[in-house]
């Protein structure tokens, strides 16, 4: 067994998940490919969304893949960092907006 949970080389093996369940694996990759095609959103916009979500999900494979992908699409580092801040703002906001729930409870119990 390897000594770390994550190995960068495993990213290249992502496709291998179809080996143990071909039908579902294939359906997933077909869906995945379709999602990132040029549509109402450009492929570039989708890649930036993916980069932000990769960070909020804290998935090292996704960060690796979408940093490279956005670079390939000519995205600048300023744009990348702004996208990550959008993710961080939602993450932070999602935590803080629950503060209202806490306030409601305090007001009810100790108002």
């Amino acid at each position: 067994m390897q000594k770390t949970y994550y190995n960068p080389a495993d990213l290249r093996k992502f496709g291998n998940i179809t080996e143990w369940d071909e039908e579902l694996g294939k359906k997933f990759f077909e869906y995945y490919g379709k999602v990132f095609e040029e549509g109402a959103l450009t492929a570039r916009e989708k890649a930036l969304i993916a980069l932000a979500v990769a960070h909020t999900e804290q998935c090292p494979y996704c960060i690796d893949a979408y940093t490279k992908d956005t670079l390939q699409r000519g995205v600048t580092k300023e744009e990348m960092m702004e996208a990550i801040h959008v993710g961080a703002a939602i993450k932070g906001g999602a935590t803080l907006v629950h503060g209202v729930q806490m306030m409601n409870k305090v007001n009810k119990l100790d108002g």
Partner: protein
Amino acid sequence: MATKSLHKRESNLANSNRQLEILSNGIFQNGELPTFKNKITETNQFPLKAKKLEILQINVGYMCNQVCEHCHVDAGPDRKEIMTLDTMQQCLEVIKNTGAHTLDLTGGAPEMNPNFRWFVEEAAKAGIKDFIVRSNLTIIRANKKYYDLPEFFKKHNVHVVSSMPHWTRGKTDKQRGNGVFDKSIKALQELNAIGYGIPESNLRLDLVYNPSGAFLPGDQASMEKDFKKALKEDFEIQFHNLFAITNLPISRFLDYLIASENYEDYMYSLVEAYNPKAVANVMCTNTLSVSWDGYLYDCDFNQMLELPVNSKVKHISEYNEDLLEGRNIVISQHCYGCTAGAGSSCQGIVA
């Protein structure tokens, strides 16, 4: 930012044999990745053969006013290899009689060859259909003696193809040197002002995009759209087409890949993106590259790796189009750079 060529630095990568060794050792020797020969054999495309010649590409010298980070020519102000008048004359004889429809002048900065203008004037008389000069743009602003180059190009109906790695200053200067972006913008505006790159104009101005690091180029059409929008909005600049070109793992780009520990991952990316359709149209099948000293190569990359054409005809002085047609193309692992994704050539994607 490099300021000297690998040759000047006496780097061992200035030696083409050393580069070829690296490209054949390691992951390709131990079978982790297939060699290019084995890969194209899988799709019944070995040996690659030259078809009818369409593009004659002449490298008039390795001297350049820039020292770009990833230059496959290892060009720079310290390179002294310059095509002589005699060799130019031999080239002109070929240009007058060739069946090729495109003449493509490259370097270095081709304009720095002292006989460049004479050569262009003479070559233009041959009436070849598409006459390309690969200009780095900054040369136009480098010295007063070059200020009138746009007018000179216009006079001879030269098709200008210029490198522009990004529409932002930061990414451009990182790759091509400080101040390159501003000078390039100025040069593009001057070219636009005399009619180059305007939508309906027949004065052709195309840009070349190549990635600033260890990653492949994105979709050419999308990049072109982004470039056009940004350059128009920010600088009122127009151009015709964008060619997205993959960086080949040779010379200074190979040096960069190794130093940044990206070599293996980059080769994996190229092999994983292998596209047999691109192999069918790869530029060596319709192009011939002539070096500053008149020797013939399948492409500019093979020229830099000193891999001569596999033909009885080796030099421009003994040029024979019929004998060169059908020759087997000389390949190594750098060739994966031209067959990744939508493929890559001096004219952009090929598949």
